[in-house]
């Protein structure tokens, strides 16, 4: 028996792939052999997903109706009058934003440095070494590239300020600490294209005038780091790292350092503390790392994804990069789709793509019985977005509408999850990871966790307590020393708003 599910763009954005997957799930649960086909030419209908069973057309609005259709139409082989559809519309032409492969350009394409070179690898480094550092800064500035580690700071400006510093020594640091829950894109890059990362780091070092660099990778990635270590050895052997790179007279030593299992070590100044051999506790800013960073010297810290974009920009030019994305947020972004998503993958899409496209066209909705209730964007420090707001365009400006881009983590959450359960999960994380250096964050996370724990014990939400929580996280926002304490209000307040609107129970 065959079930066809509409898969034209309109249907996909309304969750038809999720329904198709659900039919697969039902056939497993009921032990019935059925063929589920996603048909882009089936057409669609108003207010639901068009489904075809043996030539009969039905409209399904949610998983409950899909289950009913499955039992009556497939198992009992009856005609299901309640769900029958009279009018079938032609398939929708409107497009779903396709993936653009800039960071993912070499994924799955090479094994060793020869393969990378065959694909055009290290050409950008060769080109860069013939350019003036100021020219590279200009190109990167023109591209509008913004940091992909969460803060979105313009990369060209950061490099320019480090370049302008006069110092006997400068450093570059690649931030591969990737600790933001729901984020696994940097791991993918290190697994799939370590050489592009090395090339990007070498270009950043040449640009700002650094002869030494570190890759700081989280301790939990020690297996992944083996791939990176091998790539670094290859790069040293071929003269892309080390002394007098490609006869340019530029020396650059790059080494790997491991984190010890600490989320806050991903914050750039805490990371520098860690390399210097101390507990990862954030420093006061200013001075910024570009002025006084590692060992007091000008230091550029960049995220893995940021750096991997650089060789592409050097080779293809700023203008080409700006063809993708929006005016304020040019280019592409990696999104890691996870949680209850049917497909947990890393996708690369132009900024400005809607959350709906990511959730339904790429994540294929929620698996299992439940329905999508909300999405958390940007990692644990990011915002909860209700399913009513999926049409928001994701870029660095989305935060104005209360949706954070952050690290690009997209966590799908089903309607079985309860407000108190999620809130406790979130605050426990921050309480645990707070480095304890400043009072607002140390005490604030503790207090909020205590209030939520109490509500969990009593099994009910207390409105006065919620107000108190809001007050505390807003104080933390204004008075905490670093981004950890400053961003706890993002998840907490967005979640409280959803509760108030009745979008989570």
């Amino acid at each position, binding site marked *: 028996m065959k079930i066809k599910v509409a898969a034209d763009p309109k249907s996909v954005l309304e969750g038809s792939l999720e329904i198709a997957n659900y039919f697969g799930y039902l056939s497993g649960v009921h032990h019935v052999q059925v063929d589920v086909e996603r048909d882009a030419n089936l057409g669609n209908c108003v207010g639901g997903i068009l489904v075809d069973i043996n030539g009969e057309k039905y409209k399904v609005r949610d998983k409950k109706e899909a289950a009913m259709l499955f039992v009556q139409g497939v198992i009992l082989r009856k005609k299901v009058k309640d769900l029958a559809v009279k009018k079938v519309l032609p398939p929708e032409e409107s497009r779903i934003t396709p993936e653009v492969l800039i960071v993912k350009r070499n994924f799955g394409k090479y094994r060793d440095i020869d393969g990378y070179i065959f694909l055009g690898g290290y050409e950008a480094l060769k080109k860069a070494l013939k350019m003036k550092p100021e020219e590279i800064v200009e190109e990167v500035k023109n591209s509008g590239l913004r940091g992909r580690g969460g803060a979105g700071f313009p990369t060209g400006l950061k490099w320019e300020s480090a370049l302008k510093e006069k110092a006997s020594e400068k450093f570059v640091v690649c931030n591969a600490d990737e600790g933001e829950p729901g984020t696994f894109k940097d791991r993918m890059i290190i697994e799939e294209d370590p050489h592009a990362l090395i090339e990007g780091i070498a270009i950043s070092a040449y640009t700002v005038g650094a002869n030494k660099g570190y890759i700081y990778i989280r301790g939990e990635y020690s297996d992944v780091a083996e791939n990176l270590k091998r790539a670094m050895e290859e790069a040293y052997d071929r003269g892309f790292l080390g002394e007098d790179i490609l006869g340019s007279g530029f020396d650059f030593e790059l080494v790997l350092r491991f984190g010890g299992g600490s989320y806050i070590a991903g914050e750039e100044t805490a990371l520098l503390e860690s390399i210097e051999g101390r507990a990862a506790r954030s420093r006061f800013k200013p001075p910024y790392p570009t002025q006084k960073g590692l*060992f007091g010297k000008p230091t550029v810290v960049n995220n893995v994804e940021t750096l991997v974009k650089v060789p592409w920009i050097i080779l293809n030019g700023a203008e080409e990069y700006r063809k993708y994305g929006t005016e304020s947020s040019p280019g592409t972004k990696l999104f890691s789709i996870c949680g209850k998503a049917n497909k947990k993958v890393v996708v690369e899409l132009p900024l400005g793509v809607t959350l709906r496209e990511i959730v339904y066209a790429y994540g294929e909705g929620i698996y299992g019985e439940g329905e999508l209730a909300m999405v958390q964007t940007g990692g644990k420090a990011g915002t909860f977005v209700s399913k009513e707001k999926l049409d928001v365009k994701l870029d660095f400006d989305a935060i104005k509408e209360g949706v954070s881009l952050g690290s690009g983590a997209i966590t*799908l959450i089903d309607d079985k999850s309860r407000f108190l359960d999620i809130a406790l999960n979130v605050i426990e994380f921050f309480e645990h990871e707070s480095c304890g250096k400043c009072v607002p964050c140390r005490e604030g996370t503790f207090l909020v966790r205590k209030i939520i724990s109490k509500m969990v014990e009593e099994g009910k939400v207390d409105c006065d307590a919620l107000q108190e929580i809001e007050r505390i996280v807003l104080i933390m926002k204004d008075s905490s020393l670093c981004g950890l304490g400053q961003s706890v209000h993002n998840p907490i307040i967005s979640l409280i708003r959803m509760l108030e609107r009745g979008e989570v129970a």
Partner: protein
Amino acid sequence: MVEEKVRNALEKAKEKALEEKDYIMEVVRCLHEQFGGYAPPEALELAAQFLEVSPSKLYEIATFYSLYTLRKEAKHVIRVCTSLPCHVAGGREIIETLKKELNIDFGQVTPDGMFKLEEVGCLGRCDTSPNMMVDGTLYKDLTSEKVTAILEAYRKGVIE
């Protein structure tokens, strides 16, 4: 014995030094490798002596970072991810199963000294949620049945 291991650790850590004191973290990591998952106080003291730094520098690292520890508290350390992506994708049940099977809470050690249970933030493998790590080995796409089988394998010594 301890001295030899400390010397080995220092040598390995120094290989990758770019600066005078940029490899202290590396020293503590290499000590964990040498001693099989922990860095005992006498090793830290000795390493500090060789490095000519105050022992408190090494203690600071060995106690602040969650992957490091001064004592071998159990034969195997189970680190289960409690972050939201794993949590909503079946992680709640995995944690229940672990606590029930081991009959301990987070931070505790089983009476036979076999397992310690720890909660950790996202392991960066949310494409295979729910996940846990046992002594550095990743176990993914977990179900309660899988967890039971994995624990059994460690108990019987099938996995060392």
